[in-house]
Each structure stands twice: as structure tokens, then as C-alpha cells.
């Protein structure tokens, strides 16, 4: 092997940091530039050149990912979160207000067997953070997305203030146990400020599906959080595994039939993971304060896991779709097929 071809091979290995379509267009051209700029007799890329190529590759990948998001349904999925999640939060606010006013089934059971949000409803010191969400949903549906976004941010900040007081003063577990809903609030804020906005979300999803999905999501979270009532140990695990998990899997399969639905599922994977972790770490005491794991430890373990789940789902989605659509073309060099999103139901 000559020195030139040795250097050329090493540069080619570094150029693998670039996306396939960029390599197809520019690999030979970049190699020519790199070899022209090399010192006489050079056999290895300089450290600064290697770092520059790696960073350049990552920058091009990131730019292509953002550009590709315009055409693969991510923006529409974000728009759907902008209309769907404020509705879910609004329905959740109504539900918790009813639980607080008519505690009913939650009162007679002792705290370890009490549903999370029943206890949350009884011990939550202030309802003003939830009260903003119906207003946010109405303003978002009227088209004033920025104003709705500001309202959502204010509700989230106000929740943090209330939860911090609750944590410091009397109920550590109560402050942390419902942390999945602020994650929904973060997604709602992203949907209100970024992307095409909630009115586009309403167009993509349709009015009836929007309402149906909002009620469905509320029932799904309510079911999981109600399950501990009166159900202990193996019985609780049995109920979750035989009813809640198949129902969630069925809903996910239905949503996964469309590109926008799959991206919505990826976005919702973070709060869904938070619910699952909270459920699992609460066993066998049914409430995190009775778990051997401290609530704050649970929180700091949970957040990176939620982010990792979302990032993995988001990064794996496009390549997985391309492979499923045309597995043989995926292995060929050259520009990958362009995604053409179909509407929600397509």
C-alpha cells in the first residue's frame, strides 16, 4: 500500500461520520481537498483535521436531521401535541377537581393503598396551577398560540413553586409522584411555541379524533394511577399486566399506523416512561414514600431515563421506517429515499 492510498483510506474512514447522502455527493471531492492539503509524505490525518472532520460530520448530520423533520411528520406531531395536551391537562384538571370535591372511594383506604392522584387530589395545597389549563386550551384553539404558550409556561412555573413548597413542608412523595404531568406540560409548551401550531394540529388530527384521543389519554393515565386502590401485590400486577398494558399496546398500535402518529408516540414516550417508572418503583408499597428508593433519587434516576427513551425512539424512527419500506434499497449507497408523509390516517 502506498503512503497516499494509506492516507486516503484513513480519510475515508473519517468521512463515514457524514450522512450517506452527503458522502454520495461529496466524498470524492472532499478526499481530493484533504489530499491536496496534506503534507508531502503524510500517512496519518492530523489530530486537528480528524477532529474537524468528525465535528463537521456531526454538524451536517444535525442539519440534515432538522431539515428532514420538515418532511417526515415531526412538525405535524408537534402541532398535534400543541392541541391535544392542553386538552388532556384540562380534562385532568376537571377530574382532579372532582376527586377533591367528592373524594369517595379514596377516603376509606389507608395511604399505602390509596391511588396516587386520589391522594394527590386530597393533599395538593393549591389548584391554581391546574386551573390555568382549560384557559390555555381555549386560547390555543382560538389560534392565539403564543398567548396560550405563555399561559402554559406560567402554569408550569406555578406548579414548580407549589410542588417545592409541598416537598419542603410536608409531603416529599406527593410532590414528586405526579411528575409525569409536568412532562406533558413541557411537550404542550413545545407544541404551542414550535412548529406549525395547534390549529394545524387540529387540522391534521380532526376535531373528533382530537377529543377522542384526549379522553383516551386521560382515561389511560387515570386507569394506571387508580389501579393501586384496593389492589395489592400480585393482584395489582395482574390487573396492570392483563388490562392496562394490552390496552396501551393496542392504542399505540393504532397510532403507529400513520407517520404522524408514530412521531407523536415517540414524543409521548418520555411521560409514559415516567408513569411506568413511578408505578414500578412504588412496588410493593404502592406509593413512592413507602418504597425503599427515596422520591428525589427516583426523580433524578427517572428524568435521564425518560430523555434517553425519547432520544432513542426519535433517532431510530426514520431509519426503521426506511428499512421497513424498502429493506434492499437501504443497503445501497447513494441518496436515501425521500419521505413523503401521508395525512394522519394514511
Amino acid at each position, binding site marked *: 500500500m502506498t503512503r497516499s492510498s494509506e492516507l486516503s483510506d484513513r480519510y475515508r474512514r473519517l468521512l463515514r461520520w457524514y450522512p450517506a447522502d*452527503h458522502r454520495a455527493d*461529496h466524498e*470524492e*471531492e*472532499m*478526499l*481530493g*481537498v*484533504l*489530499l*491536496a*492539503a496534506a503534507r508531502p509524505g503524510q500517512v496519518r490525518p492530523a489530530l*486537528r*483535521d480528524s477532529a*474537524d*472532520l*468528525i*465535528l*463537521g*460530520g456531526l*454538524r*451536517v448530520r444535525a*442539519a440534515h436531521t432538522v*431539515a428532514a423533520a420538515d418532511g417526515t411528520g415531526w412538525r405535524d406531531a408537534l402541532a398535534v401535541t400543541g392541541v391535544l395536551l392542553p386538552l388532556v391537562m384540562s380534562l385532568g384538571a376537571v377530574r382532579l377537581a372532582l376527586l377533591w370535591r367528592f373524594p369517595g372511594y379514596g377516603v376509606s383506604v389507608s395511604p399505602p393503598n390509596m391511588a396516587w392522584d386520589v391522594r394527590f387530589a386530597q393533599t395538593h395545597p393549591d389548584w391554581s396551577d391546574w386551573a390555568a389549563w382549560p384557559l390555555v386550551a381555549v386560547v390555543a384553539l382560538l389560534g392565539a398560540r403564543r398567548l396560550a404558550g405563555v399561559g402554559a409556561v406560567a402554569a408550569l412555573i406555578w406548579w414548580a413553586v407549589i410542588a417545592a413548597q409541598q416537598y419542603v413542608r410536608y409531603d416529599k412523595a406527593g410532590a414528586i409522584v405526579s411528575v409525569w404531568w409536568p412532562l406533558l406540560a413541557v411537550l404542550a409548551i413545545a407544541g404551542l411555541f414550535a412548529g406549525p401550531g395547534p390549529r394545524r394540529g387540529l387540522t391534521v388530527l380532526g376535531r373528533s379524533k382530537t377529543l377522542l384521543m384526549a379522553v383516551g389519554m386521560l382515561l389511560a393515565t387515570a386507569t394506571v394511577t387508580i389501579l393501586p386502590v384496593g389492589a395489592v401485590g400480585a393482584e395489582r400486577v395482574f390487573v396492570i399486566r392483563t388490562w392496562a398494558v394490552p390496552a396501551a399496546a393496542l392504542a399505540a398500535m393504532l397510532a403507529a399506523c400513520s407517520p404522524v402518529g408514530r412521531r407523536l408516540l415517540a414524543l409521548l414516550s418520555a411521560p409514559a416512561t415516567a408513569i411506568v417508572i413511578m408505578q414500578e418503583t412504588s412496588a410493593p408499597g404502592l406509593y413512592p414514600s413507602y418504597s425503599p428508593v427515596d422520591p428525589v433519587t427516583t426523580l433524578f434516576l427517572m428524568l435521564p431515563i425518560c430523555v434517553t427513551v425519547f432520544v432513542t425512539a426519535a433517532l431510530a424512527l426514520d431509519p426503521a421506517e426506511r428499512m421497513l419500506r424498502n429493506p434492499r434499497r437501504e443497503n445501497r449507497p447513494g441518496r436515501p429515499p425521500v419521505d413523503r408523509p401521508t395525512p394522519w390516517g394514511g
Partner: protein
Amino acid sequence: MREPTFLILTSLAAAPQHGYGIMTDVDRISGGRVVLRAGTLYAALDRLTRDGLITAGREEAVDGRLRRYYVISDEGKRRLAAEVARLRRNTEVAATRLGLSGGPA
């Protein structure tokens, strides 16, 4: 506009250039102060092409290697001219305040 972008557009403003030509020209324009490496250069060319400020022009093979020439677009010229005007205004104000251009000190 960041300096590498400004220098790349300046390099292409005179005539179409290939990648290595842009690297050496930027080195010359900046008096050796800005050294564009291939990774930085092609990330910038990729972005400028997507933004419509430059286009890929003719190709030729030199010593068995592909060489592609880049051309500044009308939009690229307009953006570069706007940046030159902005820099000139700032420079004139700075020079005037420093008493370097005969203005009031």
C-alpha cells in the same frame, strides 16, 4: 453572519471556486488568520447551499479526483452586500469615535 461564512462568500464573489481553491483563498483574504479545514468548509458549503446562497456548478476531474466548483447566487450576493454595508457602518462609527478618520473625536 459569522466570519467563515463571510470569507467563503467573499471568496466566491470574484469567481467560482472549488473546495481547495476556497480554502487557500480564505487563507489569503484573512492574511493567514482564518484557516478553514475541510470539515468546517464542507459543513458551511452544505448549509450555504441549502440556504440558497451558493450553488454547485461545473465539475471536472483532476488527477483522478472530482473537483466541483461553487458559485455565489444572487441571494448570496445580496446578503454579502448587506453584511458589507453593516460592517462598514460599524467600522465608520468606531473609526470616527477613535479619531482615525478625521471625524469629531
